[in-house]
C-alpha cells in the first residue's frame, strides 16, 4: 500500500493506493493523524485502492468518530466495487458519504 496526503481547498485528501489490510492499517492510521494537522475535513481518495477488508473499515470508522467529536468531516471518493461492497456490508456507507469522484467530494 502507498499513501499520500495533500491539501486541496480546505480538505486534506488522503490518497490510498494498493491493498489495505491488517498489515497496512497502522501506516494509514499514522497518515490520518498527520492529515488532521492539515485539516479536520478528510477525504479518502480510493481510486487506486485495489483491496480493503474490515481492518480498513476500522480505520475509516476511527476517523469518522474522531471527526464527529471534533467538528470535522470524513468522506470517501471513487472506491472500486469491492471496497465499496465491504463498506456497504458493514453499514459504513450510511455514515460516511461516498462520492463517485474526487471533484464531487471537494464540491460537497
Amino acid at each position, binding site marked *: 500500500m502507498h499513501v499520500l496526503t495533500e491539501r486541496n481547498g480546505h480538505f486534506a485528501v488522503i490518497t490510498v493506493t494498493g491493498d489495505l489490510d*491488517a498489515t497496512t492499517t497502522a501506516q494509514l492510521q499514522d497518515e490520518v493523524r498527520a492529515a488532521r494537522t492539515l485539516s479536520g475535513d478528510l477525504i479518502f481518495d480510493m481510486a487506486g485502492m485495489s483491496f480493503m477488508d*474490515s481492518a480498513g*473499515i*476500522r480505520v475509516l470508522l476511527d476517523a469518522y468518530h474522531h471527526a464527529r467529536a471534533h467538528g470535522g468531516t470524513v468522506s470517501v471518493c471513487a472506491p472500486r466495487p469491492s471496497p465499496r461492497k465491504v463498506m456497504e*456490508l458493514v453499514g459504513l456507507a450510511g455514515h460516511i458519504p461516498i462520492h463517485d469522484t474526487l471533484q464531487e467530494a471537494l464540491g460537497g
Partner: protein
Amino acid sequence: MTDATDVTGDLAGIRDAVSVRLPAASAYLSVLRTATAGLAARLDFTLDEIEDLRIAVDEACAMLLRQAVPGTDLTAEFELTGQEMSIRVEVSTVGIAEPKRDDFAWMVLTALADDVDAVSDSPDHMAIVLRKRRGAARPA
C-alpha cells in the same frame, strides 16, 4: 455454447484439493488472497464471486491470526468440486479459542460466503470452514 457446456462438464468431474501452509503472520494474507483468486478462477466463478471469496478468506485468516501462536503456521485447505469451493483455514492457539462473532470481520465473512463454520472443538487449534457455491445468488 457447445464449448461452454463442455468446459463446465469437464470441471464438474474435477475434485481438486490444494493445501497451502504459510507462517501465521498477516504479511502472508496477500499471498492467500492471490491463491484463492487463482483457484476460484478454475471453477469459472464470476469476477464478483472471486472477489467475494478473496475477501472472505482474508477475513477468516485475519480473525484466526489474532489468536494464533506466534511462530507457528497457518494452513489453508481448498477443495474444489464442480460447483463449490470449500476452504478450511486453521491455526494453532493456546487452549480453546473462539472467533469473535460480534465484529466487522465476522459480519463481512458471513455475508460473502454461503456457509461459515467456526471449529474450535479441539484444544490448541482453531479453524474456520467457509463454502461458496458458483452462481448461488442467482436464479438458475
